[in-house]
Structure formats: C-alpha cells, structure tokens
C-alpha cells in the first residue's frame, strides 16, 4: 500500500507544478500587461503596482519571473485583493468552506440516492426505474445547473413561498446557536437540492452499470445458491462491490462538482467561492480569479489523490498490482 501511495504522490507533484506553470503562462500570454492580472483593475494605493512588479520581477527574464512566481506561491503569496481588503489566499480559503458546506451534503445525498436507485432498478433491467435512470442521466448532463437553480427558486421560493430564495442566513434576524443553525440549514435546502439533482444523474448511471456488472459475477450466483434472499444478496454482496466505481466517479469529478457549486452559488447569493468569483469578475479583481483557479485546481489534485488511495483501500486488486509488500 505504501508503494502505491508513494507512486500516486509522485504523480501529483508534477501535475501541481504543471498547473502553476499554466497559471503563470495565462498571466503572461493574455494580451496586455501581466501586472493587470497580478493587481487587477480595482483601484489600488499609489506605488502598489510598482511593488508587485518588483516582487514578481516583471522586468527580469521569463525564467527568473517563473522562479519568483513559484517562490511567491510557495510562501502562500497569491496577491492582495483590494476590493476585499484581504490577502487572496486567506480570502479564497475562507470562502471555500461555505462552498464545501453545499458540496459535501449534496454529494452525499447524490451518492445515497444514486445507489438506492441503481439497486431498485437492478432486478428489472429495462423496467420503469431503469428507464428513469437513463432519462435522468441524459437530462442531468444537458441541464444548465444555474438554470435548474433558478427554476427551483421560481417554484419553491416565489410561486410557493416555502423556502428562502437567497443568502445563507435571514438578513433581518440576529440569531445564535441552534436557531441560527436551523436558519442556515433552511437556506441550504434549495442550493443543495440543485447540486444533488445534477449529480444524482452521474452517480446513478455509474452505479447502475456497476450493480449490473456485480450481479453477473459468480459470487452472486453462489450467494443465491446458498438460499439468501434478494435483499441480502443486493445489500450485502452486490452493494460493497458496486460502491468502488461510485467512490471513484465522485472523487474524480470533484472539479466538476466544484464548478457546479460555484454556478449554483451565484443563483442563490451563497457566500462561497462562486459568489466571490462573480463579484471579482464585476470588480475586475483578477488576482482573486487566478487565486480561485489555483486553489481549486490543487484541491482537485488532492481529491484525485484521496480517491486513488480510497480506491486501493476498497479494492485489494489495485494494491496487489504494486507488489506483495505494498
């Protein structure tokens, strides 16, 4: 296992370096002065642009600039956001927790719902639930997630005024403790639901395929031959095997779900990365945009790494392919 983890870590290092180099290239290749991408168009104090120009060596050869950029990033210096009056890294990490607050429950619900649907559809391939999963997955891949959010707001916050349409807490109330938490949960319902619908399509499709595959295996035949009930066969024998592809599809699509969450946040004015992203576009606060990209890209690499390790932990065949001592 150790050898496997080390191999995956060795893969992640160069990818992160490549991401940083791509970011560096974007800053330098796009038309205009690179200082614009590093400082933004938001008004800054006099002399600040010159200071950044010096810090990042913009008058030096490109190789020196890349080295200075790398060393600045290694020290956590992603620049300063003047529209938010805060260093970019702190700002992005602070908002990321609100984005995760939407993503984690949504992906959990999507996983549970998707697997349950796949298990329910399993006994009758081509049946009603099975066709439903196929229709849902085609729809899920085609629906603009922000539009889905808007439709939910129109339906459940405006036409039927059941749920709050925007924000994370009720602006007019000053709540603390449990009532505050309940208020936040109440505001989470619609955005989490939007992301869940979107991802349940992805999970259900993969879960359906892996349940069908597991059902055709010999161990299922053995379990049935022992006289186990359909329910026991499905939940105790098929489910653990069908879980592996589901874990990987969720893990490898972390970047995709992050994008989904960012777009949904802009509909619900949720104070996470998406909201920061759209206000930074409006303020032309480019260091924040670049910072969000860098942090999310590195987060995706970490998510992929965790998925790889989880995958090996769940599936002994992966570990064994890395030698007996692994």
């Amino acid at each position: 296992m150790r050898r496997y983890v080390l191999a995956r870590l060795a893969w992640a290092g160069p990818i992160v370096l490549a991401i940083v180099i791509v970011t560096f290239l974007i800053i330098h290749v796009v038309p205009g002065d690179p200082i614009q991408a590093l400082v933004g168009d938001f008004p800054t104090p006099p002399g600040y642009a010159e200071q950044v120009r010096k810090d990042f060596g913009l008058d030096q050869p490109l190789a020196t600039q890349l080295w200075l950029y790398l060393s600045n990033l290694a020290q956590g210096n992603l620049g300063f956001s003047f529209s938010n009056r805060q260093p970019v890294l702190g700002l992005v990490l602070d908002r990321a927790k609100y984005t995760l607050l939407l993503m984690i429950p949504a992906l959990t619900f999507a996983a549970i719902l998707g697997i349950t649907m796949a298990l329910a559809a399993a006994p009758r391939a081509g049946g009603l639930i099975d066709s439903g999963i196929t229709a849902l997955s085609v729809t899920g891949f085609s629906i603009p997630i922000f539009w889905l959010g808007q439709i939910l707001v129109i339906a459940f916050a405006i036409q039927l005024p059941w749920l709050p349409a925007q924000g994370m807490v009720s602006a007019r109330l000053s709540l603390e403790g449990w009532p505050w938490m309940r208020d936040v949960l109440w505001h989470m319902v619609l955005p989490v639901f939007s992301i869940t619908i979107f991802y349940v399509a992805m999970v259900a499709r993969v879960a359906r395929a892996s349940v069908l595959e597991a059902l055709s295996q010999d161990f299922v035949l053995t379990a049935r031959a022992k006289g186990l009930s359909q329910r026991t066969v499905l939940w105790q024998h098929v489910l653990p095997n069908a879980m592996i592809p589901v874990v990987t599809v969720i893990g490898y699509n972390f970047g995709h779900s992050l994008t989904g969450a960012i777009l949904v946040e802009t509909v619900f004015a949720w104070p996470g990365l998406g909201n920061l992203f759209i206000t930074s576009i409006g303020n032309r606060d480019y260091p924040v945009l670049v910072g969000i990209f860098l942090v999310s890209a590195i987060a995706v690499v970490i998510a992929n790494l965790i998925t790889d390790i989880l995958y090996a932990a769940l599936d002994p065949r992966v570990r064994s392919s890395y030698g007996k001592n692994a």
Partner: protein
Amino acid sequence: MPRFLQRFLAYRAGLAAGAYVALLALVALVTLVLPGVDPHQITDHAMVAPSAAHLLGTDELGRDMLTGILYGTQVSLAVGVSAALGATLLGVLLGAASGFYGGWLDLAVMRIAEMFQVVPSFILAAVIVALSGTGLTQVVLVIMLLAWPQIARITRGEVLRVKQLEFVDAVRCLGKREWEILAAEVVPNAMAPVLAAGTLVVAQAILLEASLSFLGLSSADIVSWGRMLNAGQRFLFNAWWMSVFPGLAIFLTVLAFNLLGDAVGSALNPRTVTR
C-alpha cells in the same frame, strides 16, 4: 440504404434530436439573413408577461423574448460548432501523431492532456476570458483549448488499435511514407468514435458558452441565451419568463446534441444491433 443511415434511423431519440438541430440551423440562417428585425429593439413594454402580442413575454428593456431566443440560436450554434470543429481537428492531429509515433511525443501530449483533464475547466475558461476579453473568438479558442484532450485520447486509442492491423503493414509494403500511412490509412479508419465524441463536444461547448455568458463573461452587444439568463437572474421575483425560456432553449439544444452524439456513436458502432 447505407448501414450507418439504417442504424441511425432506427435510433428514434437521435432522429428527433437531428430534426431539432436541423430546425435550429434553419432558425440561425433565417435570422442571419432576415432584414428589418432588431433583437436589441427597446420598447415601452418592459417585463410584459407572455401574451398574444409577446408569446414569451418581454425583458426589462421591453425587448421581445422570442425574438431574442431565435437570434440567440446564432451564437450558440456558431460557438458550439466552431469550437467542436477546432477541438476535434486539434485533438485528432495531436492524438493521431501521439498514438502513431509514440515515444516522447506520446508522453508529452498525454501528460498535457491529463493536466487539462484534471483542472476545473470551467474556472480556467472563465479566468482566461475575464483576462483576455469577452469576444466570441476568445470564447471559441478557450473552449477548443479545454476540449481537445478528450478527442486526442480517443483518437490515440483508436490509432493504437488500427496501426496494428494487417492492412497497415500491407500499405507499408507498397512503399508509402509513414505520415502518408497515418493520414490516408490509419486516421480515416480511426474516425468513428471521434465523430461521436466531436458531436458531444458541441453540447459541452454550448453549455460552457452559456455558463460564461451567465456570469457576464460575454459581450453585451451580442444576443445569447446565457446573457438572457444573466438578466433573468436579476428579475427572478418579477419576471419568471426571463429565466424559464432562455434556459429551456439551452437545455433542449444541449440535450439534442447529446442525443445526436449518442445516436452517431451507436450508428457507427458495428456491434450495435439494428432494432
């Protein structure tokens, strides 16, 4: 009737999707050449609900939503098709060379493709467009840049399979040069799954363009469905039609290209059984 057409016609959802796409192309063409209609025309009838005079209502400046949606077809199709064509060309070129020649070229192309597939592509697209400008050319180029790796991977896989077939050795015996064998013999035989994937890229490109426009990353002078949804977001409480209809247009179009891609894939796959 050719086998491909026979299989394609048997796939009903794909057939309906194809008809819908043909209709969209017709709408785009008609709106392009039709004189005297201005989708930007501002009137006094701001935010009028759907009625006989304005079938899909009007927006905050009194512009007719139906006219806007019909004109928006141009942008979606132009961006979707040109980005997919560009990405397919680039992907086929790099993927074919990578699979055929192997070695360091293969290693380099595949590592770069892997990097592009790991990064959250939408965020990268939004950052590049925000920095470089919101013109349609920039949007198309960015989508091409992000979509080529999936085509390259598929092409590479197919080229690896085809180049081992006996007929390639036979052609080699005829004395043809390596690049000629690749271009004239291997690539044409590796195109079937690439065509299906290219159709799916159109769907992704339309969705990506709409998402960028929704965030305000598009020119205000161009009528696009994403831009209309961006306006609709500000008036969700007063004018539901400003969000519902442009979103429906995006959804149906992306759905049509996804179904079309599936249909092309099944029709080109010799293992598909004709129903």
